[in-house]
């Protein structure tokens, strides 16, 4: 049963006492007494499946308001994980972003059965595109656009790479849109279910875009790697892919990896296999329509040539000519975590 199939009153009651939702390979028990947050959950997780009430649960999360003065004066929202509070409270109207950022933290800090990368993942024709990129690069905007134009969303934030099978496992959750990208996606995909923008967060205005129903329903189906694309929004840039040397791609992925220090050489080997099975590119774009066209050509070229080698270059018309930059040694570092408000 999907969440939207519950009548709203029952759904709100369940949220008050503990609602169990399947999110990719995880079960999340979510409890909240904040009405505005509950409405957002019902909208953004409408097509997620309800889990058994007495089955195993990976993450027990509660979003609540503090007792005492903070309930009334400049009210706040608290994020509790297994009863602990890993983050400082945020203003009450930040409750839904707090839930999403907190869930990202739960997965990236605990789901070490996977190699976890800060990257968007989408799939077309059975092959996945992995898009690691720093904040502000246009990753989520591009991800939302692709998810509403025929690409299956696996994740906007966290790529889950199976260490044994080398597959990318879905974690299909809302896409976090920031600032101008909110209006951009509203115009680009009028059918997208986008929540009300939340102003003044650490990232500016944030609104979440619900994952398409079909993607949520396919959230138990992994995809094999196909492409690694490092996107970057550049005003006025022509949409163009530039080949990325595979060794450089490994370094970019390590930079985006949350738990490489746990998996060590097995994680390094898994990244090597991921890169082996992927065509690697940098991608610059300014207009979403042009970006989608380039990605569609990428997928179509692959469908036309199922036996292409990973080192295949795109046709010249699809590639910008750019010298390969001189590689340099660089240390491994963990990506900055997106909440930015971890309690000490």
């Amino acid at each position, binding site marked *: 049963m999907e969440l939207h199939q519950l009548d709203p009153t029952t759904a709100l009651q369940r949220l008050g006492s503990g609602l169990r939702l399947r999110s990719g390979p995880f079960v999340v028990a979510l409890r909240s007494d904040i009405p505005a947050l509950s409405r957002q959950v019902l909208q953004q997780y409408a097509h997620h499946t309800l889990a058994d009430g007495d089955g195993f649960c990976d993450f027990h999360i509660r979003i609540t308001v503090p007792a005492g003065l903070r309930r009334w004066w400049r009210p706040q929202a608290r994020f509790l994980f297994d009863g602990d509070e890993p983050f400082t409270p945020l203003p009450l109207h930040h409750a839904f972003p707090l839930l999403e950022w907190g869930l990202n933290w739960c997965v990236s800090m605990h789901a070490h059965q996977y190699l976890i990368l800060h990257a968007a993942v989408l799939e077309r024709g059975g092959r996945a595109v992995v898009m690691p990129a720093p904040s502000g690069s246009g990753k989520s905007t591009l991800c939302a656009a692709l998810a509403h134009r025929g690409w299956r969303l696996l994740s906007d934030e966290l790529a889950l790479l199976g260490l044994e099978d080398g597959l990318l496992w879905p974690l299909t959750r809302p896409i976090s849109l920031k600032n101008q990208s909110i209006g951009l996606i509203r115009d680009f995909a009028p059918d997208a279910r986008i929540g009300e923008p939340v102003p003044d967060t650490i990232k500016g205005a944030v609104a979440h875009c619900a994952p398409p129903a079909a993607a949520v329903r396919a959230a138990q189906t992994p995809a094999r790697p196909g492409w690694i694309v490092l996107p970057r929004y550049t005003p006025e840039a022509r949409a163009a892919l530039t080949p990325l*040397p*595979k060794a450089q791609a*490994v370094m970019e992925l390590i930079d985006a990896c949350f738990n490489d220090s746990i998996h060590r*050489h097995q994680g390094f*080997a898994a990244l090597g296999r991921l*890169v082996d099975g992927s065509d690697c590119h940098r991608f610059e774009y300014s207009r979403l329509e042009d970006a989608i066209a380039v990605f569609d050509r990428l997928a179509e070229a692959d469908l036309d040539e199922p036996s292409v080698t990973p080192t295949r270059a795109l046709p010249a018309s699809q590639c910008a000519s750019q010298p390969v930059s*001189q*590689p340099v040694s660089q*240390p*491994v570092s963990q990506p900055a975590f997106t909440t930015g408000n971890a309690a000490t």
Partner: protein
Amino acid sequence: MPGHHQTLLGRYDVLDWGEGCVVYDRSRFLTHLLDPATAVLLRARLALGEEAHAPDRLQALLDDMLPLTGTPPPADL
């Protein structure tokens, strides 16, 4: 073309796609991207069978090639 993956001296995992080379140092938990000239030198020394015949020389080369900078080891070590 898949990359060539090998482990040197039981310590260094090397991924080599010809165009560039990445080395993971299991002892220091650091990953290094070798520039093309350095990668050519490493390949040449391996082709000479140095790992089997002169592991100390290969170790000295790797010590010289790989900087010591990077994130510290995990806290549990």
